[in-house]
């Protein structure tokens, strides 16, 4: 009776049950699979959204060794000869790069929307990239669109070289290649000839379809960056002592850049790392949410296996009396869990991969809206993720199967005699009021802890999530204590109606199964409703903020500005022309530059603080103590910062920070803190003339126009759009709705995750009732003998189900109130630094309650009908 018994027992014992009740086993696998699938989908989508972000330059040059970038703004070209001289003949390629985002011009129907596709335009000296000794590459200046079909040698080098701006695109861009492409860069629409396909070496990553390449000088001209570059990449020549030379180059670049003052030096992949860091909190939050379904599933697997133990007790007892040891029984049960887990994990991987193809778009849109321009390609699981998802299914199943396996093993042989004995009341943890309260208390303590902080300024509220899970478990336990009082309350009614009386009698002493079903449902409801509260609070806050900050009649930005990181601007002349339009009473300009503060990306913006009209627009979190920040004579060293900024940099009112600018580092004291829900990176707001002087640039990021009385904003918008086809012009109402649309889009993926969680919990309720009814087969026989009809048996079951649903709903809603508070004041605040006003979405909560209870009732009724047809005695 050693382990060689296990295969025999599995075959004759476990598999026989699976064969006899294939649907139930399949359902268990499906629940597990769903839990794993959601996790996998979100993980894959997350990875795709981040992986798509890269420097792109490697498409052309291979991976560079170092890259330098100004801490704010661009670098002047004059540093290039300086760098070359400083390198003193060292064999290093110096590759200056300009990177610009652009989008296709608005087409009728989408001119009013954010989130149109955006292209990354990369400007590199296309002649000198040929020096990078990539023999597979074809040179740029001899290609033509037709060269794909004919002899490439027919291209004329000089004709191509002197052709003016022309763009090379990815092989995946379009087939056939268009002769021209329209691009919105800053406020202008440019028609640029398509010169050919980006040549790619076999070892280089293939150019993504959104990447376009232009000659450096041409892109500088097109984007108004003549004489400026965004970064310089360095590639050391291959040969001996490469590591030594690479390190030496770094030292030299760091010294020459005056340790970050002129420029910062970063290694390849650093940009991707910072993109990862930037979105880490967002992605972790999603990952946690994606575990809801699995968590709910965990309850159910536990419950199903526990149910199986109860049902198979007679057989276990026989095995025991035949001398099979406890350990062998336990092993078989764990094997059963493991097999379920493996099957669930594998199926979950497939479902998850399919789901990722949808989720990836949602995640990509959010990343685009909140962080940076990303081109989401496809989400394919890596081998590690395949292993992870299988392992997740396995671990979940084993964790859930552990206790039932122990119970099974402990079944005393004598219990066989008590067929139909009262089902177990459940694990003592589940029955302990003390444990439940202890969990809640531990959660309260966790909620007081600060977040974990990562490089790059992102924060993760680990303790906050721990608190949430503790509360969910605690509430799950406590919820079952609602069942007996509920039953007692309903007794008066129950005595007059036999099916109710039967149902309520069961609830007065709830079984472990009831407890688990209630806990699983509560978990799903609590999290769903909690999230709904967060979203509602966010939305209410957002609406208030939008109402307060969006006062102008028209909002204007380059329609190339499609992402939070876009640097498309409006030229000073266009901005002046807009402001000077006869129908315009007043105009406000905003400039914003991405800067890097201690290596953490944030925004430095400027508005006219001295304009008295600016002030009421600012939603204060901490208002300035006096008016000096608005006084041009006094505000030289003062700035306002957004709330996210204070959280991210741990600075607040009265603190002084040093910001890098092209004019050198500037010291600013924080005079006040304002709310800004549009930007998670945080922003510093200073007086416009100062920012303009520092950046020596008079282009603006946004213009808002206040029209004269009697002028119709829509009419003016129509007129301006004709004059400036490259500008996105929003009316106030339109912008408000757009902002809220993006906001809701951001949460769309979380809604999907919740729906799945609730669906799993509902399945769980059905499963519970199925096993409950199977347990009570004798009772059903008795009821039938007493004259209960099929419909009455179903009614009894439905009342039982409804009662469990009702308790879970009541408990779940109470839990959601707490979770909502936690999400708003701890998790959100710690992750994003936004203060939200608590708002209850009563309608949504009521709808959720009604849906859960109705579904619970209907599902239970259906199960009851099935139970009523159960024969009196049969192998399950």
């Amino acid at each position, binding site marked *: 009776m050693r382990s060689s018994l296990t295969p025999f027992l599995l075959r004759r014992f476990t598999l026989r049950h699976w064969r006899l009740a294939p649907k139930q086993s399949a359902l268990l696998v499906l629940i597990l699979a769903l839990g794993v699938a959601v996790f996998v989908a979100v993980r894959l989508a997350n990875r795709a959204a981040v992986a798509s972000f890269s420097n792109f330059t490697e498409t052309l040059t291979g991976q560079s060794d170092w890259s330098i970038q100004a801490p704010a703004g661009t670098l002047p*070209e004059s540093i*290039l*000869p300086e760098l*070359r001289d400083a*390198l003193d*003949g*060292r*064999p*290093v*390629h*110096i590759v200056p790069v300009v990177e610009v985002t652009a989008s296709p011009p608005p087409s009728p129907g989408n001119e009013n929307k954010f989130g149109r596709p955006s292209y990354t335009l990369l400007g590199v*000296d296309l*002649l*000198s990239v*040929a*020096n990078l*000794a990539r*023999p597979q590459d074809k*040179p740029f*200046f*001899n290609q033509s669109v037709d060269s794909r079909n004919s002899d490439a*040698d027919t*291209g*004329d*080098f*000089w004709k191509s*070289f*002197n052709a003016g701006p022309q763009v090379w695109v990815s092989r995946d861009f379009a087939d056939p290649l268009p002769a021209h492409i329209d691009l919105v860069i800053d406020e202008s629409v440019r028609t640029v000839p398509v010169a050919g396909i980006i040549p790619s070496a076999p070892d280089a990553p293939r150019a993504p379809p959104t990447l376009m390449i232009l000659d450096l000088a041409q892109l500088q001209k097109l984007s108004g960056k003549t004489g400026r570059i965004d970064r310089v990449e360095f590639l*050391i*020549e*291959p*040969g*001996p*002592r*490469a590591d030594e*030379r690479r390190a030496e180059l770094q030292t030299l670049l760091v010294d020459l850049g005056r340790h970050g003052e002129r420029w910062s030096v970063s290694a390849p992949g650093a940009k991707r790392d910072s993109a990862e860091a930037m979105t880490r909190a967002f992605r972790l939050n999603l990952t946690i949410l994606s575990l809801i379904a699995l968590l709910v599933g965990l309850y159910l697997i536990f419950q199903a296996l526990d149910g199986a133990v109860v049902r198979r007790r007679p057989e276990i007892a026989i095995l025991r009396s035949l001398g099979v040891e406890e350990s062998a029984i336990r092993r078989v049960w764990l094997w059963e869990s493991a097999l379920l887990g493996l099957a669930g994990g594998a199926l979950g991987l497939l479902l998850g991969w399919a789901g990722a193809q949808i989720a990836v778009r949602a995640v990509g849109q959010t990343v685009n809206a909140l962080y940076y321009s990303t081109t989401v390609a496809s989400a394919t699981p890596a081998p590690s993720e395949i292993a992870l998802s299988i392992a997740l299914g396995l671990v979940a199943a084993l964790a859930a199967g552990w206790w039932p396996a122990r119970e099974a093993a402990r079944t005393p042989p004598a219990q066989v005699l008590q067929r139909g004995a009262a089902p177990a009341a459940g694990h003592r943890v589940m029955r302990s009021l003390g444990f439940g309260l202890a969990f809640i208390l531990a959660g309260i303590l966790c909620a007081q802890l600060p977040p974990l902080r990562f490089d790059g300024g992102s924060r993760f509220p680990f303790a906050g999530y721990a608190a949430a899970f503790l509360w969910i478990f605690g509430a799950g336990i406590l919820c079952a204590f609602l069942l007996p009082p509920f039953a007692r309350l309903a007794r008066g009614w129950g005595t007059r109606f036999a099916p109710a009386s039967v149902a309520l009698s069961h609830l007065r002493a709830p079984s472990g199964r009831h407890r688990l079903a209630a806990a699983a449902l509560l978990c799903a409801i609590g999290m769903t409703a909690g999230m709904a509260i967060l979203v509602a609070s966010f939305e209410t806050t957002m609406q208030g903020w939008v109402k307060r900050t969006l006062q102008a009649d028209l909002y204007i930005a380059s329609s190339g500005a499609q992402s939070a990181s876009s640097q498309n601007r409006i030229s000073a002349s266009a901005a002046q022309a807009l402001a000077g339009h006869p129908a315009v009473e007043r105009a406000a300009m905003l400039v914003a530059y991405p800067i890097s503060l201690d290596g953490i990306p944030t925004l430095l913006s400027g508005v006219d603080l001295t304009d008295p009209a600016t002030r009421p627009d600012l939603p204060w979190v901490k208002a300035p103590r006096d008016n000096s920040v608005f006084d041009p004579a006094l505000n030289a060293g003062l700035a306002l910062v957004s709330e996210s900024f204070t959280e991210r940099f741990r600075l607040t009112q009265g603190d002084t920070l040093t910001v890098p600018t092209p004019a050198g580092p500037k010291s600013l004291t924080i005079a006040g803190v304002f709310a800004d829900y549009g930007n998670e990176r945080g922003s510093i707001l200073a007086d416009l003339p100062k920012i303009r002087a520092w950046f020596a640039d008079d282009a603006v990021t946004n213009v808002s126009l206040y029209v004269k009385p009697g002028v119709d904003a829509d009419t003016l918008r129509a007129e301006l759009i004709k004059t400036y086809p490259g500008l996105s012009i929003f009316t106030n109402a339109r912008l408000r709705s757009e902002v809220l649309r993006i906001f809701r889009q951001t949460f769309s993926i979380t809604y999907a995750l919740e729906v799945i969680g609730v669906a799993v919990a509902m399945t769980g309720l059905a499963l519970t009732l199925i096993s409950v009814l199977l347990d009570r087969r004798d009772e059903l026989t008795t009821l039938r003998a007493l004259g209960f009809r099929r419909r009455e048996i179903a009614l009894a079951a439905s009342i039982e189900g409804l009662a469990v649903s009702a308790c879970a709903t009541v408990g779940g809603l109470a839990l959601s109130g707490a979770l909502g508070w936690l999400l708003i004041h701890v998790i959100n605040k710690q992750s994003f630094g936004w203060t939200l006003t608590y708002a209850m979405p009563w309608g949504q909560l009521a709808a959720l309650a009604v849906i859960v209870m109705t579904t619970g009732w209907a599902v239970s009724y259906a199960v009851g009908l099935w139970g009523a047809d159960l024969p009196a005695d049969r192998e399950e």
Partner: protein
Amino acid sequence: MAAKRRKMRKKIPHLLFLLFASFAPLCGQTSAPLTTADGFAVPQPGHIFTFPRDHGSHPEFKIEWWYLTGHLFAKDGRRFGYQATFFRSAAPDKSTHLHLAHMALIDVATGKFHHQERLNREGWDARSSTTTLDLHNGPWSLRFLDATAERMSLRGGIRADVGFNFTLSPAKPLVVFGENSVSRKGSAPTAASYYLTFTRLRTEGVLTLGTESIAVNGESWMDHEISSSQLDQNQIGWDWVSIHFTDGRELMFYRLRLRDGSSDAASSLTWVDAAGRTQKSNFKLDVVETWKSPATGAVYPIRVRLTTTDPSTGKPITLHVEPLAKKQELTGNLGGIPYWEGACRILDDSGRELGNAYMELTGYAKDLKL
């Protein structure tokens, strides 16, 4: 005339196309127009060179190059041959210039040949001064350290495997090839160049080879040629040889090969005596051995016999040109077709070594099309 250079792939047609220019057949008497049809300057007879200005760049001319070849010796007896070349070529519309550069090294002991090419447009990473010798292309540079003494510095190398850090000083005065400041290159009136050569430059410095820094010294030859003329359609390539004799004289020979296999009338052989005076002489060339490049399939006459008259004795002399290594082909593809440019030594009939040489063989790659 050291005029060099190859026909190019069509990739970057005009650049090396123009490098061919000065090989058009010599012709004679027509007075030179001021500019070519496309508006570039034409070398004028009687031009007075001013230095160091004329060692610098002449952007009004379409094409210009500075061409160094030399032999270097280490204390332990190891020897090396090197090439360092800077080209400038104007855009047809004169909007910019392209700068091409080639570097090569032959390690005679191992037979390992290194080479690299570099192509940049005029700008921060490639430029040539118009006031003195000051050339840059990426990390490579050639410039005067002392314009009066005409002492120059060469910084270059081949990837990170080879580094050149040499100082070069003229051992003999500058030679101006041609007549009346102008070296005529063909029948067209515009086909001419200014052709300036330091036939013998004492060269010393540090050669980096792998992780090793080797103190070397030796002698180099430097051509500087300026022109705007066009290639003769009938020429398919050329052979060029420069010789440093141990007796202090030099010899420069080139043969333009015509499509029909004959030599163009412009082909010539010039002796430079110890004082720097030039004298043309007759020549006869026989191919002794060819070598087929495994990389390009081109068959190069890498061992030749040059028969001429030694002006110091008035007697015929046979010069055996022997490559120090066969594999000295520059196979690069940035600027044009492959060519062979190799360090050689010169032997007489008895096998006595008379000096060191560099030989250039172009137009042998089989894909060559005009």
